[in-house]
């Protein structure tokens, strides 16, 4: 099932996302037609199936990462899941999701939401902003929020949203804020995995094609080593992301997601570095597509917690489990 979802998404994105679309979106346009296609294909409903939903959503995210899809796919998927669990109606169109950052602050009292969220993806393009605040899921009309522009290193909209007023809809929150943060971190792990896979392909192809000193640079042992190291990072990320997907709704979601975000985040930085090292000046140009991938890697590894944030938190849990409890914990999970 999930393989089929991946193939569908991968084909759609491969055909629709090109350099031109990426550049235009970064310059401020919204790829309406692509969004329509995503909705029509049902990809935004990937979480729907109670059995395979998480794996299906993971497949969509990985495919989106592979093609640097310039749309709020992760945000919409997670927001729809949250609304569905809360029993709220799901608006059509792209959705924004808050909070994303530990510094975000909000309060919901007397039917009124007050809050500031510092890094909301695509808020100004969303049909609704879905927020978790004070034990409630709230649906906010973006037109009634103050939205200041902002972008991450990849040029993806990350906006400062200030809300002060009644939401369009509200319901008791079915999950804790940690769960939302965890799902956000999980989404970034899958996106990074996809982007790393393409980065590796691009770099390996280049190394075979590019001739210097009379032979392909891929014949140099040092270039081969860098590509091998990159492949190792991608491999470790793929497994860490799968383990987190399998456990996203399980008892050991924290452990599995923390490991995925730490491992994929570290791999993302290394993969970007190795790729640029292999590709030299050409990879540093705006003309080449590499940076659409690597700038996303640099952004996503920071979103929903850096490797260091998750490592410290995981290390603290490990300490509570203790040296003798660590292995039983890992093998039980």
């Amino acid at each position, binding site marked *: 099932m999930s393989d089929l979802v991946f193939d569908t998404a991968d084909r759609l994105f491969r055909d629709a996302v090109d350099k031109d679309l990426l550049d235009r979106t970064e310059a401020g346009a919204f790829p309406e037609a692509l969004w329509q296609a995503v909705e029509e294909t049902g990809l935004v409903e990937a979480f729907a199936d109670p059995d395979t939903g998480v794996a299906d959503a993971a497949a969509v995210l990985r495919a989106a990462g592979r093609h640097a899809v310039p749309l709020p796919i992760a945000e919409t998927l997670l927001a729809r899941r949250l609304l569905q669990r809360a029993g709220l109606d799901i608006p059509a169109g792209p959705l924004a999701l808050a909070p994303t950052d530990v510094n975000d602050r909000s309060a919901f009292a007397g039917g009124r939401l007050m809050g500031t969220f510092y890094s909301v993806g695509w808020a100004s393009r969303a049909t609704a902003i879905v927020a978790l605040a004070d034990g409630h899921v709230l649906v906010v009309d973006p037109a009634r929020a103050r939205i200041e522009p902002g972008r991450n290193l990849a040029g993806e909209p990350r906006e400062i949203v200030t809300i002060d007023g009644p939401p369009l809809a509200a319901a008791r929150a079915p999950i804790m804020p940690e769960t939302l943060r965890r799902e956000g971190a999980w989404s970034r792990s899958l996106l990074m995995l996809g982007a790393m896979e393409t980065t*590796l*392909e691009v770099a*390996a*192809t280049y*190394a*075979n094609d590019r001739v210097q000193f009379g032979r*392909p640079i*891929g*014949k140099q*042992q040092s*270039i*081969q*080593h860098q*590509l*091998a*190291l990159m*492949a*190792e990072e*991608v*491999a*470790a*990320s*793929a*497994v*860490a992301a*799968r*383990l987190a997907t*399998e456990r996203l709704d399980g008892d050991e979601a924290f*452990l*599995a997601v*923390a*490991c995925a975000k*730490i*491992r994929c985040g*570290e791999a993302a930085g290394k993969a970007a570095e190795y790729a640029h090292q292999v590709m030299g000046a050409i990879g540093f140009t705006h003309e080449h597509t590499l940076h659409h991938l690597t700038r996303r890697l640099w952004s996503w590894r920071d979103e929903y917690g850096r*490797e*260091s944030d*998750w*490592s*410290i*938190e*995981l*290390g*603290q849990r*490990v*300490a*509570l489990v*203790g*040296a*003798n409890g*660590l*292995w039983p914990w*890992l*093998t039980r999970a």
Partner: protein
Amino acid sequence: MTALRFDPPTLPPGAEALREEVRRFLADERAKGTWSPRGDFGTHPDTAFSRLVGQQGWIGMTWPRQYGGHERSGLERYVVTEELLVSGAPITAHWIADRQSGPLILRVGTEAQKQRFLPAIARGEIFFCIGMSEPDSGSDLVSIRTKGTKVEGGWRITGRKVWTSNAHICDYAITLVRTGPQEPDRHSGLSQFILDLKAPGVEIRPIRNLAGHHDFNEMILDDVFLADDMLVGQPGDGWKQVTSELAFERSGPERFLSTYRLLAALVDRGGTAPDDRVAEATGRFVAHMWALRGMSLSIAGMLQAGETPNLEAACVKDLGNAFERAIPETARLVAPSAMPVAGANDPFETIQAEAVLNAPSITLRGGTREILRGIIARGLGLR
């Protein structure tokens, strides 16, 4: 470009019960004083303990019953292995026979060899080592000079092997010998033999390692006679036989768990409310180990399914090397310094010291990083 594949493994029913069984066994025997935890798995052979492990049915687990095996899955074997490794149990003595020599005999040995050696290995009664490297050939097997000459009823072997781990406590060595010319290709002409280490003409001399310990040996073979039935597989197939084992050799839990006990000691040293430096280091290492174990288990599942995930195994080995080496280097920098206690060995300091001294040997096992990365690069389609 060959995509790397890590299929989700399916643990057989009973795997977790087996895990508990192993833990119980280890706890009981430790309480009896049979064993105590040691550092790196590659040291401290204990033939008596290995015999106990054999009695539990945990050597040759996957082999057919008719040869003393237990016909369990590779993933059950995986569970037993990781539990033994993590506990620091002394499993060195039977390690090579269980992982390499036994499976080799099972795969290409004669019926007589299978009957003669496998049940005894599985009982933990006979032990094997590997006579591969020579003074002038490390990773480069084709330059092997130990020579086997066909004589009436067998072969006469003369040469010199080095780095044969634990030859001094083993009974046999699977020995790689040049028996013919390098034709039709440079990998031809090598053969594997089962060498009885007590045979006339075999001399074993210790090679102490840098910490002064005796794990390695030099094996001098002076016109040793080996009967025809000690040849394993086909004459001239030695290189093929050796390299086809590599996915097994490169992906097991021993590839990233050899410094696990130091990680645990660091957790201990950090206490229940560790400072951020210790917490960050342990959290990061746990994430790396988690991913490596996921990869390694996946490979075990694919091997069980009859596949040969060689590229994937090379990834585990190269990442595992780096991981195992990083633990002592980081642990020494973040560990809060503790007040020394006169006359008492601090457990963290002891394991840390052992890990630092042992670190250079990590890459010596199962292929240098140059070879591993070359394999992966070729898999990526680099020409």
